[in-house]
């Protein structure tokens, strides 16, 4: 069984919500990213999303854009991120999801990417600008290699689209809590809970909510109705501010711990 599915099964049995942090791979360096992954696992993260840096990240707000730029300064590639996962697998079995734009995957080649990612120990892939309609070949190959295909559902998604996306999604469904780009927000829209309920009518796949969640209070609120809480920019911002400081992974872990506790209702 895919590590993502087992993790959600364990959490469901315990009546808990998953905490899913996002970080940009290679920011500030791939070696430090590995340390941050281990610190996040230690803090209690259930699944970790690794952002693949891309030159033109249209779905990202300024915090994640800058993180990608820092990684690209030393030419971090999708190949490098896959290789990093392979190294991480010597140290951890935490479920790992690649969050990427499509062009690097297209340049890698669908089949080569699916094979290498599976070999490295990647558990899921979310391709932010690749909707289900355009991704039959990609999806088939990732599934052949046992990798989950995670898709976004947005506030603008119609019932018909929710049905299509729910059918294509494995691992979990990522509900985008805001129309907009990634980034820190002041509050969570009240309609998010209703949307999560609406999606559940079409799918038994766990639903994680992200885009804009940055504080323990928001994490606690979302954990009340979602199967997973995703926090990205708030963590990426800390990584950006502390950069190469050797104490950074520990500090990021400590911040993540407050979000984990809120997500778990502690």
């Amino acid at each position, binding site marked *: 069984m895919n590590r993502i599915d087992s993790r959600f099964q364990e959490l469901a049995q315990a009546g808990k919500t998953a905490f899913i942090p996002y970080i940009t791979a290679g920011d500030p360096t791939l070696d430090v990213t590995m340390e941050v992954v281990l610190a996040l696992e230690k803090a209690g993260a259930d699944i970790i999303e690794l952002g693949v840096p891309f030159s033109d990240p249209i779905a990202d707000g300024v915090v994640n854009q800058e993180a990608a730029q820092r990684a690209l300064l030393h030419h971090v590639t999708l190949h490098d991120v896959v290789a990093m996962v392979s190294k991480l697998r010597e140290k951890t079995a935490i479920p790992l999801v690649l969050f990427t734009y*499509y062009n690097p995957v*297209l340049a890698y080649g669908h089949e080569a990417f699916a094979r290498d990612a599976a070999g490295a120990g990647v558990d899921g892939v979310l391709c932010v600008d690749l909707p289900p309609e355009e991704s039959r070949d990609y999806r088939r190959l990732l599934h052949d290699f046992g990798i989950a295909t995670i*898709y976004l559902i947005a506030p603008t*998604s119609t019932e018909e689209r929710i049905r299509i996306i729910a059918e294509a999604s494995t691992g979990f469904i990522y509900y985008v809590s805001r*129309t*907009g780009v990634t980034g820190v927000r002041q509050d969570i829209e009240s309609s998010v809970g209703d949307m999560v309920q609406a999606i559940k009518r079409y799918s038994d796949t766990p639903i994680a909510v992200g885009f804009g969640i940055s504080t323990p209070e928001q994490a606690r609120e979302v954990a009340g109705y979602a199967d997973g809480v995703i926090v990205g920019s708030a963590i990426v911002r800390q990584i950006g501010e502390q950069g190469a400081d050797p104490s950074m992974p520990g500090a990021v872990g400590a911040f993540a711990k407050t979000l984990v506790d809120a997500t778990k209702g502690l």
Partner: protein
Amino acid sequence: MKNFEPLSETQHAPYPYPDDRGRYGEYGGRFVPETLMHPLEELEVAYADACADPGFQEELRQYQKDYVGRPTPLYYAQRLTEHLGGARIYFKREDLAHTGAHKINNALGQCLLAKRMGKTRVIAETGAGQHGVATATAAALLGLECTVYMGTEDMERQRLNVFRMRLLGTKVQPVEHGSKTLKDAINEAMRDWVTTVGHTHYVLGTVEGPHPFPMICRDFQSIIGKETRRQILEKEEKLPDLLVACVGGGSNAIGLFFDFIGDETIRMIGVEAGGFGPETGKHAARFAGGVLGMLHGALSYVLQDKDGQIDLTHSVSAGLDYASVGPEHAYLKSINRVEYTYVTDQEALDAFQLCSRLEGIIPALESAHAIAHICKLAPEMEADQVIVVNMSGRGDKDVQQAARFILPEEDQ
């Protein structure tokens, strides 16, 4: 003069593209974050609805005639023809359209569509500033709020257009990221749109982006070729032998070419920006150096590195300085219907001066790329052959930029 009946504008076999997936052969499609998927479906439906509405078509025709000044003239460039000593050269004078370029054809059509859809705000990206000015103009005309995203390098190159947009009541939003040119302006416009899509329409300025944008823009620009057909038949009593246009995203080129795709004897050439030459890496010749990729929502030729990161491009002309090219052009290349080539910055600057001196027409640096190429071809052709080149825009916006390269330092 003999009055010709215009030939049927769809005399060629039905052209099946885009297909129902928004593809032109294997190119095109709709590759966007989920938030934009349904708005694009809505746009497609609203556009089909507008096309079927005679009232919308009539409103558009009226504005094209009384506001834009269509039809634009087809002008016989006698002195350039004599200078080059070969084929007869005509300019399709899109530079004489209101705002000084073909961009108004699409901006006006899309702003009318936005208004019909109940949107109160439009946004646009711009490189050379011509699409930004056109959108700002149509927005002012129709009472829509307007924001235009523009890279700071392009703002520097095209200061006149920045002022024009502001004068028209548009907010010009500087984009500091990445290459600070058109690509980054599109990124920023997409980020705006994904956030404001409820009340905002994105007036994409070229035949790029996710379906249905390349189709909508092509359709609004195809009036260029339709007029050209009528006009050349009137003047020459035959169709042209060669059509030439510059290709950035490719909207003026597809606008000229589209009505002639089925006329298989007519040769068509798209001219890309060669910059300092493709071998230097400083260029925007996607068909010379690009490979299949996906940028800004469509599969097409993309200048990128082996890992799929988008390359920085270079051209003296801001409007051609872009890493990808419209998917329909990629398709037309794949079936060998249109040839694509490039000219360098220097060749374009030479043609810019030649055209100014011989014809009293200062072309946009973009259009100067097309003229530079006919300077190579016309002398090789027969005197009874006819070339139509799309004078896609006027060059007033470019005089400062051009002066940096052309004039000796003391005259600047």
